């Protein structure tokens, strides 16, 4: 497994124009992504917003749009897994998120790529895991207790 990028592909039963709107219209994006954006997406613009996922409304969302080629390609940069309010992520490396739209029979093939994880410090990755439901440090304790029995 490549630990430096994520690739996703999904076939949507909708026209490319529909998918483009869902990706790039701030209101539509926010509906499925669960974020309330403060501004529209525009090339070069830093867009902020608030997470609307129940229980996590205190988190902010921030991306900088890189490219928008209508019904073809949309990309932005952000800080992956920036969920710790005590940390200022602004000086840290970003990852690049790219959406590629392809018209196919019966709908649209959407390819999503997030790349640049090699620039994210290992310590930050470990921290992100720790924050996931107790994380690996807790798991280690659990297993240690388990095997000690």
């Amino acid at each position, binding site marked *: 497994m490549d630990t430096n990028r994520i690739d996703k592909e999904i076939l949507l039963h909708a026209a490319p124009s*529909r998918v483009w709107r869902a990706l790039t219209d701030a209101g*539509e994006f926010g509906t499925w992504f669960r974020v309330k954006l403060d501004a529209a997406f525009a090339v070069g613009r830093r867009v902020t917003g608030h997470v609307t996922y129940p229980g996590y409304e205190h988190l902010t969302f921030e991306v900088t749009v890189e490219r928008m080629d209508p019904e073809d390609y949309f990309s932005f940069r952000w800080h992956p897994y920036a969920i710790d309010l005590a940390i200022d992520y602004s000086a840290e490396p970003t990852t690049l998120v790219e959406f590629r739209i392809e018209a196919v029979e019966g709908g649209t093939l959407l390819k*999503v790529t997030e790349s640049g994880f090699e620039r994210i410090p290992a310590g*930050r*990755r470990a921290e*992100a895991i720790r924050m*996931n*439901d107790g994380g690996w*440090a807790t798991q*280690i304790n659990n297993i240690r207790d388990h095997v000690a029995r």
Partner: protein
Amino acid sequence: MSRADALSVSRTSTLSAAQAHAAAPLFAALGDETRLKLVLRLAARGPESIAQLSATSTVSRQAITKHLEILARAGYVRGYRRGREHVWRLQPKRVAIARGYLDQISRQWDDALGRLTQFVEG
């Protein structure tokens, strides 16, 4: 991204008796505060010399060396010479951490794209 999604994911793991037996020394090596700190530090900052590792620690250089040797026997770290220094680096954990992290973000994308599908097809 709905970063919050990953927080709701819980993983449970079960170990067979044989696996647990094999795994016990691995976890025992981490069952010490100083050693856990050393692992986390090497994960965060990359390879460091004994001098660097003991500079900010209240534990003696000699004790740090002993802890690193225990970690090395469990395969978490490896020591090598860099000029006149003895430098230690993290071994498999780093890869495990990187994979776990990407797995998590990958699941977030799966969830988000699931919602996108419902949104545009609904």
